[in-house]
Structures are given as structure tokens and as C-alpha cells.
């Protein structure tokens, strides 16, 4: 048996886990681990400029690839800086393993230098966390961490590693377990057949059906099955913000996404439906609007791997706990066997109703006569130039909503955004994480000048590792979504939503050795995007000046039902 120090075990375990990249930042408590890292070549380490960025990179890698991302940070501020990224992954059910240094176990509790109770701090925002009590536990805990992070409903797992657990001279037998079994953790591997049968019967007798494809469809790699089911039944589909790409946007069955800034047709169809099949969506407040007014005539079939997501906000009529993929495969098998078909007449009536609703708003927006670009125009141009095939990593705010509305995703794992936590500063490091793993793909960060400044230090990381992402910054010189709410609810008092003294983004980008292009007119837009994407090996920052007064529509009227929307500044349903 091989004898290794705790530090060596950390690195060896990651090697045995076939980890290619880790993202992190060194510091006192993890120096032994960094020293072990330096003595091997299999695992590449990306040195970020702020730990939050490390977590977002790992997170976005996981979102794009489906495999857990790995982060290594030091104790105290290193760990607390990582918390926002851990919480971001937690809210969106993203698998991630975060290794945190800790002060030596002999000093824990004594307010030692760079000591933070990371077990306590991270507890509410992790799927689970472990503290290492003895170096020989390290391989087993790392194996468990990966297993927990990526099975069931995925999520981040933190391992707290006191420095004395990694002392180079203390060697122990190393053995990386083949598999994990835990008596207290056994996620469902398939749904209940009786419930699935009931669901199929309900589906076949629906007259006004809707299918909601959520983030769990993508996380559960069930997009193909969900698509097949919808096409088999010819039922309309809406994909949540987290589910974009889980069903192809170019398919005529797709109605856009539901919720606060969802399409008129998706929201209205949901409200009027008699049956909703939800696949891995959790009916969060940004989707449902007032829960007591939510879809009054709809029965609900709810497929979710996490039983606590079912009937949490909206009561399900047919709950199915299980992985989306296996449940859908069983549903498709039942549909293939049965002679029953949906009521064709009812369905055709439903579709003609939906087609009318599609005409009502249809994603329209008004162009400016003063020449100022509209954000929607920019996203449409981006879609055109990238042929709809880019990874779009978004920050948070109006630009996120515009990107989600106007970039049409045909594939899963291409739309990467902080949906649950709404973390400004997510987009840029997320794009970096994706680009590292998919160097040949077009990877775009869609951001605003507010969000971008929350992690712009990563320009430096991109210089160091040559990460040529494209940054589309919709610069409206204000915190657009805050401003929109202030316009709508606070008599346009723009309290602290105007960003005074913006940097010269051109010079800033230049300072880090990247290229910037400023765009102020429609005529410049497409050529600038084409130029940016032609520069395959360069990071290009597109500072695109847009109309600061634009609002995102449709927008659900607060505390109302799904059919109550603002369609423009002046038009309400």
C-alpha cells in the first residue's frame, strides 16, 4: 500500500477522480496542498484573482459538461469569498466540490489567524459539508463529496481541511474507494410505476395540456426524452429560465419561457391549461406569480428527483419522485404501448387558441428613432452572428432577461446563468470556465456594465491562461433592472441605480492586454460582432451603448395570476 501525506492524498484523489482542472487561490492553510499540486502535471490549476470567480468557473464548467467542478481555496477570507459562488451553485442544483483550507485543528475555535467556521458559514448553502478529522479520511471523504455532489439533486459539497491534516511528513496508507454506499443517502433511481401510469393516463385525457421543462431536465440529461414526449403527444412546451435549451427553441411546439419576464403565450397558456406536466421545474416565485392564483384549472403532474420540491409551493396532483430521464423513458414506453390518443379536436382547438395568443405580443419591441441601440437588437444580432450555436454565459439583470428572450437555444447546457440566486458577477468567470473546457466553441459573456464590474479582475486570469471569451456588455450606464423597478414602482426615483464615473472600458481592457470594441450605432453592431468572433484567439470586450430607458417586457403584474402582464410601458393585459 502506498504511503501519502494528507496533501498528497488530496491531489491523488482528484487525479483518481479524473479531474482535469481545478480553480483556486493559495493561502497559508492550503500551502501543503499547493505544494503537492506543484509536483504533478495531470491536474491543471487555474489561478483566479478572486475566489468567487473560482467557484463560478467550476460551476459553469459543471453546467456545460454535467460533471462536477472543483475549487481549492484557503481558510478564512478565501473560504468566505467562495460562499457567493457556492450559494449560486446550490440554488441552481449544480454539482461542485469545494476544498477549503482550515487553520490547524489544534487552533480551531481560538480565533486563529484566517479562521472562519466554514462548516457553519457554508451549511445553509451546501448539499453537504465534511470536516477532515484525520488525514487517512481524505480519500474517502473526497469520493463521498463527488458522489453526493453529482447524484440525486446535484449541489455543492464543501470539505473543510485543517492544515495539520495535510502535513507533508505525516504519511498514511492511501486507498481511493471504487464506490460509495451510505445508509443515510440513497437518491431515487426511478419513479413509482403506478404514479407514472397515472400520469400517462392523465396526459392522454388532457384537453389543454402544457409541458414545463425545467433545469432538472438539463441536469438530469433528459432533454432528448422530454423532446420526444412532447413531439409524440404534439403538446405545447415551455422551458423555464433554467430549462432553456432543454427543448429546442426552434421547434414550433415551443412557446418561450414562463414567469416574470416570460412570453405572453407561455404564461397565458399555462393559466388556461387543464394539465401541466412539469419535468424538473420547482415552481419558484419568479415563475408562479401569486401561488393562490396559479393556473386555477390545471391538474399538475410533477416529476422531480427531490421530493421536497414537490408540493412545496404548488400542490401536485400526481407527484413522481425520480430522475427525469428514467421517468420519461417509462412514460414513452407506456405511450408506445397504448392505443389511446389525445382528443384530436380538443388539441387542435387548444393549438389554434395558442396561435392567437402568439400574435398578441410576439417578442416585439420598438426601435429608437434617435439611433440609440436597443438591447434586444444586440442579442438578435449576436444570435445571428453566432448562428445560435454559442454558449451564452449571462450575468444578472435586464441583459440576462434580454439574452434569455432573444437568443434561441436549441441545445441543452448552452444557456449558463445564475437563475436562482441571481448573482451579479457570475457571467464573466462562467464564460471562462466554459471556454477552458470547450476551446473550439464560441463562448460569450452577456453582461452589463454593473454586473461586469463585480468580477472584472478576471481580465488578468484570462491574460495568464489565454482564455479568449467574447464579452458583450450592454452598457446602459445604469443598473437597468433596478431602474426599471424604480420607474414602475417608485415614481422613477432612481435611487443609487445610476452608475456614475464608469471606467473607460476600452482603456481598461487594453490595460490587461485584451481587445475592446465600442459600439454606438446599429451600423457598427454586426461588423463589430463579426470582427470579435473572427479574432479566435483574443478576448474581445464589446462595449455596446444601449438605450438606458428600455424595460424588459412582458412582465407579470405583482401578486396576480400568470395571465396578468405588462406587455409594454403602457399596455396591460
Amino acid at each position: 500500500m502506498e504511503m501519502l501525506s494528507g496533501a498528497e492524498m488530496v491531489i491523488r484523489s482528484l487525479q483518481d477522480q479524473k479531474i482535469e482542472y481545478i480553480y483556486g487561490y493559495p493561502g497559508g492553510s492550503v500551502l501543503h496542498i499547493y505544494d503537492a499540486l506543484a509536483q504533478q502535471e495531470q491536474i491543471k490549476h487555474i489561478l483566479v484573482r478572486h475566489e468567487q470567480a473560482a467557484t463560478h468557473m467550476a460551476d459553469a464548467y459543471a453546467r456545460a459538461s454535467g460533471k462536477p467542478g472543483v475549487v481549492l481555496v484557503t481558510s478564512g477570507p478565501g473560504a468566505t469569498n467562495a460562499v457567493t459562488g457556492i450559494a449560486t451553485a446550490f440554488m441552481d442544483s449544480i454539482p461542485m466540490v469545494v476544498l477549503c483550507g482550515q487553520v490547524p485543528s489544534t487552533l480551531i475555535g481560538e480565533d486563529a489567524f484566517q479562521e472562519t467556521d466554514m462548516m457553519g458559514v457554508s451549511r445553509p448553502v451546501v448539499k453537504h459539508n465534511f470536516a477532515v478529522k484525520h488525514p487517512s479520511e481524505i480519500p474517502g471523504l473526497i469520493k463521498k463529496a463527488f458522489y453526493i455532489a453529482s447524484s440525486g439533486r446535484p449541489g455543492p459539497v464543501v470539505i473543510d481541511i485543517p492544515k495539520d491534516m495535510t502535513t507533508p511528513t505525516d504519511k498514511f496508507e492511501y486507498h481511493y474507494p471504487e464506490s460509495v454506499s451510505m445508509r443515510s443517502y440513497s437518491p431515487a433511481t426511478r419513479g413509482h410505476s403506478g404514479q407514472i401510469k397515472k400520469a400517462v393516463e392523465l396526459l392522454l385525457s388532457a384537453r389543454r395540456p402544457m409541458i414545463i421543462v425545467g433545469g432538472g431536465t438539463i441536469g438530469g440529461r433528459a432533454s432528448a426524452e422530454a423532446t420526444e414526449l412532447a413531439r409524440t403527444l404534439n403538446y405545447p412546451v415551455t422551458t423555464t429560465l433554467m430549462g432553456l435549451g432543454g427543448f429546442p427553441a426552434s421547434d414550433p411546439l415551443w412557446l418561450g419561457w414562463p414567469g416574470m419576464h416570460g412570453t405572453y403565450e407561455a404564461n397565458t397558456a399555462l393559466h388556461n391549461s387543464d394539465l401541466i406536466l412539469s419535468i424538473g421545474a420547482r415552481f419558484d416565485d419568479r415563475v408562479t406569480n401569486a401561488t393562490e392564483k396559479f393556473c386555477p384549472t390545471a391538474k399538475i403532474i410533477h416529476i422531480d428527483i427531490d421530493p421536497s420540491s414537490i408540493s412545496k409551493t404548488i400542490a401536485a396532483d400526481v407527484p413522481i419522485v425520480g430522475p427525469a430521464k428514467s421517468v420519461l423513458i417509462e412514460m414513452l414506453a407506456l405511450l408506445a404501448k397504448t392505443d389511446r390518443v389525445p382528443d384530436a379536436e380538443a388539441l387542435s382547438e387548444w393549438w389554434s387558441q395558442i396561435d392567437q395568443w402568439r400574435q398578441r405580443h410576439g417578442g416585439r419591441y420598438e426601435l429608437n428613432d434617435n439611433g440609440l441601440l436597443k438591447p434586444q437588437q444586440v442579442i438578435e444580432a449576436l444570435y445571428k452572428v453566432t448562428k445560435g450555436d454559442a454558449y451564452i454565459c449571462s450575468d444578472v439583470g435586464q441583459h440576462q432577461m434580454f439574452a434569455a428572450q432573444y437568443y434561441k437555444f436549441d441545445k441543452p447546457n448552452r444557456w449558463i446563468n445564475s437563475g436562482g440566486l441571481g448573482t451579479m458577477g457570475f457571467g464573466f468567470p462562467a464564460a471562462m470556465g466554459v471556454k477552458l473546457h470547450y476551446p473550439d466553441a464560441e463562448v460569450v459573456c452577456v453582461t452589463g456594465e454593473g454586473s461586469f464590474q463585480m468580477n472584472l479582475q478576471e481580465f488578468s486570469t484570462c491574460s495568464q491562461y489565454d482564455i479568449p471569451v467574447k464579452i458583450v456588455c450592454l452598457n446602459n450606464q445604469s443598473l437597468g433592472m433596478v431602474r426599471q423597478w424604480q420607474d414602475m414602482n417608485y415614481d422613477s426615483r432612481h435611487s443609487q441605480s445610476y452608475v456614475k464615473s464608469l471606467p473607460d472600458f476600452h482603456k481598461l481592457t487594453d490595460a490587461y492586454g485584451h481587445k475592446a470594441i465600442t459600439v454606438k450605432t446599429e451600423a457598427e453592431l454586426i461588423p463589430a460582432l463579426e470582427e470579435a468572433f473572427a479574432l479566435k484567439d483574443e478576448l474581445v470586450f464589446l462595449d455596446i451603448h444601449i438605450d438606458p430607458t428600455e424595460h424588459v417586457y412582458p412582465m407579470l403584474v405583482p401578486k396576480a395570476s400568470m395571465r396578468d402582464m405588462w406587455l409594454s410601458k403602457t399596455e396591460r393585459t
Partner: protein
Amino acid sequence: MRHIIAVLLENEAGALSRVVGLFSQRNFNIETLTVAPTEDPTLSRLTVTTSGSDRVIEQITKQLNKLIEVVKLVDLTEGEHIEREMMLIKLKATGQHRDEVKRTVDIFRGQIVDVTSSIYTVQLIGDQGKLDAFINAIGEAYVLETVRTGVSGIARGDKVLSL
């Protein structure tokens, strides 16, 4: 409605803080909480009393089950069950009232476990209602100090909460 939930938990450092944290994090109500290791030293048994609508209780049990260190749980109030709580209570016992206190303790089948010339310390076991009734019967004016263990519960009959 009041519920008594019994939980088998991995007997590991930090496991209890996850349970307690869950209740505050998700705005669940917690009335009493008792915890101790079981005959299997790798397991702790925890009894929590809480209240809420059916939907809230369903969420509480689901969220508890989701904690990695929770091995098994049961809502005891769904079936026939026994609940007990122990109270130690220090009572003023002077003058003619001294006898009255003694009689009340006997009626409630409590035991006087410590005595001074002016104080009885009483041990009383029962369900929450019985302990509350005892304090009422004695009169709050005579109560100097109370300590209650919180509720422990177990199902009646053949039902067993074990691995």
C-alpha cells in the same frame, strides 16, 4: 397542529446543527428538541415537536429527510404513540403551603427529590399537558425555577423506528 417527529441521525459532529439550522433557515417552528445517542453508538435519536399546517409538516419531514445525516424519521403523531417529558421544578414550600405542595406533588405522582426548609425540588414525568397542569395547580407564584427536558416519544405497539 402539533407534531412529534422522531429522527435517527448519524452520531457525528455537526449533525445536530444541520437539523437546528434547517428549522431557522426555512422558517419552521420548533417547540422542543431532545437528542441523545442510542444503543447503537453510531446513531443519535432526536425528538422534535413542531406545529404547522399539513403542508408545512410535509415540508419539514421532507427537508429533514434530505439532510445527508438523517437516516430515518417518523412523524409519531400520525399513529398511536407515547410521549413523555421530565421536569425538575423548584417550589416555594413554607408555612401551611408546604403541605399543600406535597399533596399536589402526590396527586400528580411526582417525587420530591431535594428538600430544604423552604423549598421542595420536584421531579415530574408526563406528557406536556400534565406538566403544564401541574404548574397551574401549584400556582406560578410558588414556582422558583423549572427545567424541562423537552418531549421524547415512541410509537405504541409493534412499530419500531430502527435501521
